[in-house]
């Protein structure tokens, strides 16, 4: 409720009163002053905006100039670009190579080795690092020591590696690749554009293929996608080589061969995906990298 003042029967204004306050020159002067004040305010606002923008630009430049700690979690996000994925796989390869070379050094160069391993800790910040080539000491090594060095290197990789895939990957040992466990959760469907599925009969799968069962619980922003030739799924082997799956199964009756073609394929699922990847060769300690989902080490 609002109170008012009621003025009843007020006297009418006279012509003198009307003329009394009429002064256009005053209005003109006031308007000029108001415009000048508005212009001044505008200048101040522009100045403030420029200061803020300059500050932000300087802040961003300073922030970008500091070397960023880029780990293999770079492909953790579903929106990761192809280049980031390729960089990540290349990075794992180089890491394996460097570790193997460091391990193959003779005992005498232990101090050098230690310092090399220290350097390895900083490797994450240098994604495009060239592989280290150590020539002299390798030539004197025997085959047995090479195997030993390789094993130690694998252990190092294992130790250094931090999985970014929310799940695990195991070697699936089965006599019959047609009998996928029905108790597992598989993808319920998919969106696919320009797809050529290249469906394969499971009985045709070669017996010498190694099947890996990847169980993953994707984060909310992650999607399982498939690219032509499964180029988005890689297996980085202990020797640093990279291979893609020869076959893939998204569940019973859904076996796709390597000739799979798609411009956009995204799987539907509830909360967990079980995916079978068939590689010509795979062993414990290898790393499976799935673009958009992350990387995980193969377990027995």
């Amino acid at each position, binding site marked *: *409720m*609002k*109170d*008012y*003042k*009621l*003025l*009843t*029967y*007020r006297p009418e*204004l006279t012509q003198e*009163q*009307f003329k*009394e*306050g*009429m*002064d*256009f020159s*005053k*209005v*003109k002067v*006031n*308007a*000029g002053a*108001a*415009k000048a004040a*508005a212009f001044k305010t505008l200048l101040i606002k522009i100045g403030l905006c420029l200061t803020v923008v300059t500050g932000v630009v300087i802040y961003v430049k300073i922030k970008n100039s500091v070397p960023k700690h880029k780990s293999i979690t770079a492909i953790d996000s579903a929106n990761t670009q192809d280049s980031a994925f390729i960089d990540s796989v290349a990075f794992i390869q180089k890491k394996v190579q460097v570790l193997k070379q460091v391990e193959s050094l003779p005992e005498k160069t232990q101090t050098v080795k230690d310092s090399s391993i220290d350097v390895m800790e900083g490797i994450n910040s240098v994604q495009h690092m060239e592989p280290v080539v150590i020539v002299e000491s390798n030539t004197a090594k025997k085959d047995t020591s090479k195997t030993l060095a390789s094993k130690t290197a694998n252990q190092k990789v294992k130790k250094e590696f931090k999985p970014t895939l929310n799940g695990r990957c195991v070697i699936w040992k089965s006599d019959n690749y047609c009998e996928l466990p029905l108790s597992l959760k598989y993808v319920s469907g998919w969106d696919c554009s320009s797809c050529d599925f290249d469906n394969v009969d499971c009985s045709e799968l070669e017996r010498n293929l190694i099947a890996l069962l990847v169980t993953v619980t994707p984060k909310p922003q992650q999607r399982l996608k498939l690219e032509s030739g499964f180029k988005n799924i890689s297996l980085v082997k202990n020797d640093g080589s990279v291979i893609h799956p020869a076959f893939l199964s998204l569940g019973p009756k859904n076996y796709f061969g390597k000739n799979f073609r798609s411009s956009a394929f995204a799987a539907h699922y509830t909360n967990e995906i079980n995916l079978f990847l068939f590689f010509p060769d795979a062993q414990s300690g290898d790393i499976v990298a799935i673009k958009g989902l992350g990387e995980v080490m193969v377990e027995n």
Partner: protein
Amino acid sequence: MHIQKNIANRMLTEKEQVERSKTSPACFEPLYVKYYEGMIRFVYKRVESFDDTKEIVSVVFTKALTNIGKYKDKGFPFSSWLFRIAINEINQFYRDSKKLRAISLDEKGIKNIAAETAMEKNELISNLKRALTYLSDEDLLLIELRFFEERPFAEVAQILGVSENHAKVKTYRVLDKLRSAYARV
């Protein structure tokens, strides 16, 4: 036909004056002279002191001249733009001064309201102040424009920046509100 032509010429002249004022403030003077009296009357109906009225009107024209570059002709007369500035300035004046909003009521206004609410004149006057307390600023403005100042609906709509039909509907809703306010007091 002749009258229509004259009106069209007058409107065109006013439009031209407005357009010229955007580049040259001196061209605003004819508009100032033309609307000054109407503006004084309009503000004086809502403000108790004549000195305050003059001050407010001066601010209204200063603001109009300062912002005339932003004025866009939307088919309403130029005066409706000035009245809207005046309404804002009056509201600002009451916010700053903390004074009670003044309502000027004359014989004509009382008659109009009495006719609309079907009440006795004496009863209406004695309770009007309390009944008006139930109305919002916008409702009060409608009552003033339509019944105290006897403006046609078209002009009320132009001042409020709404369609004529909308103004009519709103006015009759406010009258209903006023009738129920009378029932309460």
